[in-house]
């Protein structure tokens, strides 16, 4: 066996991180050329998880694509459902003949489940990052808390991962009887648990020093590379679609947006891995607040328990059979950043074009830029800090 010397200036070792590497969060291959411990170049290689989801969207009818959006980002399937459904609704409403509105209770439930799912998604993100950095315990505690969200979702819609809950025009079921109490109880308990989580890992000096000043992305760079969501906000850019282009009832909630401020103190800099990590944790706190606020706003139940609210089974179903022509692009704030659906309809039952824009894709795009000259051990921390979910990249 030989180790290739790829450039004349120094000997480089080509390492294949993945497609089955413990730290690549799925089936992602990262070709790392390293000079000893120092990474020289780093090239993400996608496509190992490609399932033609966008293409499938052009073959099935509008409502039938919703289960597939679950699979685009299985860590926050609710948000993915929501993004597609909002896009589809907007396209339907572009035809003046279609005059349905999503019931207010439906809008509230949508925001509620989206924020709950943001919590569980961020838990996976911060936990997995801690695990990549070598702390195993926080990840498992994060997962245990995520089970609380999953239990609520399972009671709500019958599944723990691929919910197919948000429908075009509403949500599939109303809240179950004890949902509000359970969610409140979960949030209280979860808030206490997060304090312990943070004491265990966030403020740990080893963890902080490993992430501080690693893969720093300046605000200008972040915008130039098209970073979105917490990755963008970690670089200090104050932008959040929930606040700046509100959809649903987000406009009434007054979303507060945490941004990176060199949380690591004098060792860190704005936009480093630690900032992205802490921004996620602060977003969890914000989500807890939003959930509570939504529960306050929730109008009383109108129908019987198991009925859908709005939804394509009702009048929307008929309108989907005769969709208008046109195109629409809707962007929403998913946990991994802006999740945008671009839909083109030619008036037939199936969409002409479905295009999904996801946060992980742009995050993976900046890898080769930020991973120059960092240590090999940092590669995994950086992957964790950008919180990529591979099917989001491959779609």
């Amino acid at each position: 066996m030989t180790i290739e010397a790829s450039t004349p200036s120094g000997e480089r070792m080509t390492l294949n991180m993945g497609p089955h590497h413990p730290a690549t969060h799925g089936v992602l291959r990262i070709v790392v050329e390293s000079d000893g411990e120092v990474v020289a170049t780093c090239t993400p290689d996608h496509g190992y998880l490609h399932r033609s989801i966008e293409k499938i969207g052009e073959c099935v009818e509008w409502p039938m694509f919703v289960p597939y959006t679950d699979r685009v980002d299985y860590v926050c399937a609710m948000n993915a459902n929501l993004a597609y459904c909002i896009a589809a609704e907007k396209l339907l409403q572009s035809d003046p003949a279609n005059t349905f509105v999503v019931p207010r209770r439906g809008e509230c439930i949508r925001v509620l489940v989206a924020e709950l799912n943001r919590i569980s998604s961020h838990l996976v993100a911060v936990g997995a990052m801690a695990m990549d950095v070598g702390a195993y315990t926080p990840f498992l505690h994060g997962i245990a808390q995520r089970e609380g969200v999953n239990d609520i979702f399972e009671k709500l819609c019958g599944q723990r991962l691929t919910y197919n809950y948000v429908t075009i025009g509403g949500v599939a079921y109303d809240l179950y009887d004890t949902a509000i109490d359970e969610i409140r109880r979960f949030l209280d308990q979860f808030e206490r648990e997060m304090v312990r989580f943070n004491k265990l890992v966030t403020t740990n000096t080893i963890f902080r020093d490993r992430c501080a000043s690693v893969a720093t992305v300046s605000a200008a760079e972040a915008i130039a590379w098209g970073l979105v969501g917490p990755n963008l906000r970690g670089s200090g850019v104050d932008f959040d679609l929930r606040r700046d282009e509100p959809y649903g009832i987000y406009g009434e909630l007054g979303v507060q947006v945490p941004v990176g401020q060199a949380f690591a103190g004098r060792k860190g800099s704005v936009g480093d891995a630690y900032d992205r990590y802490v921004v996620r944790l602060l977003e969890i706190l914000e989500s807890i607040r939003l959930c509570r606020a939504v529960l306050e706003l929730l109008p009383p139940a109108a129908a019987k328990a198991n009925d859908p609210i709005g939804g394509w089974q009702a009048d929307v179903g008929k309108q989907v059979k005769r969709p208008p022509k046109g195109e629409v692009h809707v962007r929403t704030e998913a946990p991994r950043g802006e999740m945008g659906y671009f839909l083109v309809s030619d008036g037939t039952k199936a969409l002409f074009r479905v295009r999904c824009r996801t946060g992980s894709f742009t995050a993976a795009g900046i890898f080769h830029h930020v991973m120059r000259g960092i240590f090999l051990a940092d590669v995994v921390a950086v992957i964790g800090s950008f919180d990529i979910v591979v099917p989001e990249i491959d779609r």
Partner: protein
Amino acid sequence: MIETFLFVVSSLLAIAGAIGAALVRNLFHASLLLGLCLLGIAGLYLFLEQHWLACVQVVVYIGGILVLILFATLFSADVMGAVQRRSPALLAAGGLAAVLASAVVVRLALAGRSAADARPAGDMRPDAFEGDTFTVGDLLMGDWFVPFFAAGLLLTVALVGSVVIVQRFRRPAGEVADA
């Protein structure tokens, strides 16, 4: 009897390790064989009842120098292949060095033998050491203080110098990829 056996084993280890280190063409194997040789020599020190020396031999030569050599091997070109080519010039130089070193060793051995002959039979110890850690410490801090500290200073200077050299060659982290 067991002493003889162990002595033979140690000596064979030392000799075989040395020969192997000289002849084996794989750099990594040669370094490992050198380690074997050093271990054998540590064993020989034990036979001289010089426990302290034996331990220091292991700490310094195996734990320190051998590891450094191994480390350097890994940074050499073509790490895994690492097979040395023989050149006649190097062979000649090596041979010359070996002859000279042997001459010195034989000369010393003969001198030691005559010194030993002068002493009463059965006392095989060299003059300077009494096999006592304290003696070694006293000698290093007393009679041999100046050479000891001179050596220490030299090593420190070498260390600092190497750090300086490395600093000069080190590029800023961001530039690595541009080369």
